[in-house]
């Protein structure tokens, strides 16, 4: 088990380093998934089976899928290689030094105070008992946290509203509030689609509803309109 831990930790670290240095974003994402899976192995070795399972299911599963959606939607594969040409610039060196200093400090701390050895770990049942015992308030708060993320993502990810409102506002004349915040009319919806078309240009066939659905991440958006 010990060697498994070290090997998987090595993989995790290596994969993570690759994540932050790759120019190709899809590659980076794949390395990130590798890193997460390796950490899941670590967690398993530490006796945290539930955590390991969740790491795979939610982190490497759900959350990474979100990233994939976005990458696919925006067709980022090629464009981003240009944007990351500036590697190995002085900025990279400086950032590397900064991170290294922080890491050195943390390692110094951990070497100076090694702390207790690793224990046998905990049964998922214990976690469950805690969650619905002393941590019940935390669970509720976590749900609020998700709710807040949901509402925020809904608001930001929602497709553009009727362009008329925007145009009027740019003129400086006060936009009519009813049309400004109301549901888009049929015309507005059509316009919305054209706008999104620009965003989703050359994307692999996802329609506009996918954006809303994928961004919410944690469930259906309550006030999201029917996909057209």
């Amino acid at each position, binding site marked *: 088990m010990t060697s498994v831990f070290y090997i998987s930790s090595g993989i995790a670290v290596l994969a993570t380093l690759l*994540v932050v240095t790759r120019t190709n974003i899809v590659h980076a994402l794949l390395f990130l998934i590798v890193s997460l899976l390796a950490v899941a192995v670590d967690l398993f070795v530490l006796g945290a089976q539930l955590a390991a399972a969740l790491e795979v299911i939610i982190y490497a599963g759900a959350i990474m899928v979100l990233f994939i959606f976005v990458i696919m939607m925006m067709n980022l594969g090629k464009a981003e290689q240009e944007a990351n040409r500036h590697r190995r610039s002085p900025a990279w060196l400086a950032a590397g030094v900064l*991170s290294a200093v922080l890491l050195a400090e943390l390692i110094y701390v951990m070497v100076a105070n090694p702390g207790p050895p690793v224990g046998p770990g905990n049964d998922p049942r214990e976690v469950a008992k805690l969650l619905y015992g002393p941590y019940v308030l935390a669970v509720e708060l976590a749900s609020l946290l998700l709710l807040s993320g949901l509402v925020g993502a809904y608001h930001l990810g929602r497709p553009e509203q009727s362009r008329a409102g925007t145009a009027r506002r740019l003129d400086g004349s006060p936009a009519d509030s009813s049309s400004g915040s109301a549901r888009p009319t049929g015309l507005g919806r059509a316009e919305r689609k054209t706008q999104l078309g620009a965003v989703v240009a050359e994307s692999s066939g996802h329609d506009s509803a996918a954006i809303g659905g994928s961004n919410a*991440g944690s469930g259906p958006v309550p006030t999201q309109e029917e996909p057209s």
Partner: protein
Amino acid sequence: MNIPAGHVMIVAAVLLATGLFGVIVRRNIVLVLMSLEIMLNAAALAFVAGGSARGADGQVMFLLILTLAAAEVSVGLALVLQLYRRFKTLDVSAAASMKG
């Protein structure tokens, strides 16, 4: 099992530092968000390591961090969409109009 827990913490620290490095140097907003995930993951790992010899509190914290990661990523990716709409790029350095 004779892994010193300090080693787990060191692994977590390395992941954290790598994530920090990513946040600092990467310009692609999606990569920055990924780096954030790495850092959160590192913290979660540290919590589990801290709790392995004790109660299951560490795993509870892991779970809570997971919800945070989910919430943060959902808002973050929505912002990525908006960034792309406004600036037609995913380069965060494009969104640097405010300074001084």
